[in-house]
């Protein structure tokens, strides 16, 4: 017992010492910048490389954690550099004064300023200010399809240049589904229904919201857009509660459980690890609403990085930002083809060696022309659309609600969230 007690006291003393020693940060010494990002977007190798090369600016990474971000915000000490899952959220954050205005930094940087691809990075430019850049962007609605499944079903491959309509896409997906065998025609990934709905509304000349983004649009045409996603699941063309996927859409596609996915350019890099990928998989552009009509695509606003408005070291943080976008990490990312770099000079580094890589890059660069910012409202976060949608969708799939009932439920919870968002920004 005595030994345990002594050990405990020693540990206590040790602990307090460590606490006291680290409690105050010398203002002149090296600064520590916190990066909130998943490891896949800001790897520990890059961090280690930076830390050895720059003893005066040390980086530490924290996992993306909503609870932590909010608590940090209340404490007045958010992470310095933050990964934004979808640039569609930029207006939301900007309206709440969370982001550092980088316009001057961009124009002062020879590596970034003149080189930005404004079409692809547009979501990070809000009300004439730059708030960050995508790590890379993608035409996320372009189709990757499994050639073998088309051949087996005796269906000709879709055109690589002329988009089909969403009705055709739906019919095709239905033909390719075999629910009893766990094979789906297509799958809507994560909360991409919100973004696809946004594209569809653009193509029909409609908006998802009315009254300056503060209410959902009750127009029957727009309601019908949302219903499309309900039907996909109800008709067993996409996964539902009874027919589930193991893992996410991309892995199910690669294990031959999905015939077509709308994931976009970056997903090609994932497929490239599968043996025989360039023979097995093909590409088609994002569908349209009217044959030969307007084409619209989006990039979810693209995953990217911003700098907190409350950072104590904006200059140092921008140095890291610049390095990440234009130097080693940026070049490495471009070469692997995980997305189209936000800097034009890096776009030539994208892989273009085989038919598969050629097709996806050609389609991507063509579709960039039709890219529009997602129509999500700045009064609430993308995550809220997802969770509210899922709740309504589940009620519908379990037979408790009709199609219209589900849309009503979704609209009701969204309108509530939008009204609260209005309060939040003090309107």
């Amino acid at each position, binding site marked *: 017992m005595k030994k345990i007690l002594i050990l405990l006291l020693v540990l206590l003393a040790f602990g307090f010492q460590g606490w006291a020693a680290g409690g105050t940060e010398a203002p002149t010494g090296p600064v520590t910048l916190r990066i909130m990002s998943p490891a896949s977007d800001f790897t520990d190798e890059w961090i280690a490389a930076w830390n050895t090369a720059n003893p005066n600016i040390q980086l530490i990474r924290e996992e993306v954690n*909503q609870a932590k971000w909010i608590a940090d915000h209340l404490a007045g000490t958010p992470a310095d550099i933050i990964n934004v899952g979808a640039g569609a959220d930029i207006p939301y954050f900007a309206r709440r004064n969370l982001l550092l205005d980088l316009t001057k930094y961009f124009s002062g940087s020879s590596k970034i300023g003149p080189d930005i691809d404004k079409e692809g990075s547009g979501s990070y430019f809000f009300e004439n200010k730059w708030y960050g850049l995508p790590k890379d962007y993608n035409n996320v609605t372009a189709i990757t399809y499994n050639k073998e499944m088309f051949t087996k079903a005796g269906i000709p491959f879709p055109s690589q240049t002329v988009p089909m309509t969403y009705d055709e896409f739906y019919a095709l997906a239905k033909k390719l589904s075999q629910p009893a065998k766990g094979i789906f025609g297509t799958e809507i990934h994560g909360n991409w229904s919100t973004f696809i709905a946004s594209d569809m509304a653009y193509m029909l000349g409609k908006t998802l919201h009315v009254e300056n983004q503060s209410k959902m649009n009750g127009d029957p045409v727009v309601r019908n857009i949302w219903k499309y996603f309900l039907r996909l699941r109800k008709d067993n063309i996409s996964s539902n509660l009874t027919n589930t996927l193991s893992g996410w859409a991309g892995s199910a596609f690669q294990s031959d*459980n999905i015939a077509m996915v709308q994931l976009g350019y970056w997903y090609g890099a994932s497929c490239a690890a599968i043996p025989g990928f360039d023979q097995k998989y093909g590409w088609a552009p994002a569908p349209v609403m009217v044959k030969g009509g307007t084409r619209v695509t989006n990039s979810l606003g693209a995953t990217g990085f911003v700098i907190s408005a409350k950072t104590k070291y904006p200059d140092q943080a921008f140095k890291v930002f610049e390095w990440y976008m234009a130097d080693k990490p940026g070049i490495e990312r471009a070469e692997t083809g995980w997305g189209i770099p936000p800097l034009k000079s890096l776009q030539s580094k994208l892989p273009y060696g085989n038919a598969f890589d050629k097709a996806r890059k050609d389609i991507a660069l063509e579709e960039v022309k039709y890219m529009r910012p997602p129509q999500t409202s700045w009064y609430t976060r993308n995550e809220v659309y997802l969770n509210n949608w899922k709740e309504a969708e589940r009620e519908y799939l379990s037979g408790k609600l009709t199609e219209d009932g589900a849309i009503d439920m979704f609209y009701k919870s969204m309108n509530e969230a939008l009204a609260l968002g209005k309060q939040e920004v003090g309107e």
Partner: protein
Amino acid sequence: MKSKLRTSTFFEREKRKSFYLFMSLWILGFAVFQLIPILWGFNASLTNRMAFSLKVKFVGFENYLKVFADEGVFQSIYATFIFSLLNTVIQVALGFALALVVNTRIRGKGFFRLFYYLPYVIPVVATGWILRIFFDKNVGTLNILLSNLGIISQNISWLGDHTLFTVLAAGFWRVGWSMLIFLGGLATIPSELYDAADVDGAGPVRKLGIITLPMISPFIAFQCVVSFIYGMQEFILPYLLNPTAIRGGQVTMENPPRATFFILPKGYDLIFNKGRLAYGFAVLWVTFIIILVLSLIYARIAKKSTYSEMDG
């Protein structure tokens, strides 16, 4: 007479001093880690604070009024309640049954006891992952086993169609803890009682009814309260056993289906996903009061209706 009184108050004072001396660490920890935080939460629940509010104002009990009109919150409380009740039944009935089974006088019971308890030792995050893969519709071991045995012809979507069952199954898997408590209870029963019953010619069922159950009732009462409280606090398993919520290689904090959208995940959703800080705090405060009141009522009933040599 007078001096005796003085010494007794002296002892009383010394005793009190010692009491607080030994309680001091807990009191400090409680105040800092729990009391201040929940009071902070209460204070915040009286405002209209959102996660990134630019202006915050005091609104009194407005949020609490909203809680009582919120159907979603009601559904979550209801789901939690159903889960806690079923889980309590599992913990008490099966825990007790297992304790009886391994308490028989046969060789090797120590071995079985040990291995029945083992799943409880597995950390809960690991439990979630193990069961998620165990119950998976397409690659899960349970469906493979059932179809190999010819019991099912088509794979069952355990996670999607029977979500509550999977979370309860996790509770069942971890029943060893409850078993141990009941084993402790069985050990307190003097064997003379059984000997006396043998003399009276009582069979095993009768012995269970007249000796074991009454003697073990305090343990049953204890286990009921504790399982209920833990059930009301269930948080992480519904996320890990949510059929749709793996993106990339990670579990996301996406809301679970209605049957397992318990009140703590609901609070998490309100506060962190939807950013409704003040309202989320109000919901959790109401939850706290509900758990507290139910537990106190329950403890009172249990105290009256069980055989007990209650100490202090």
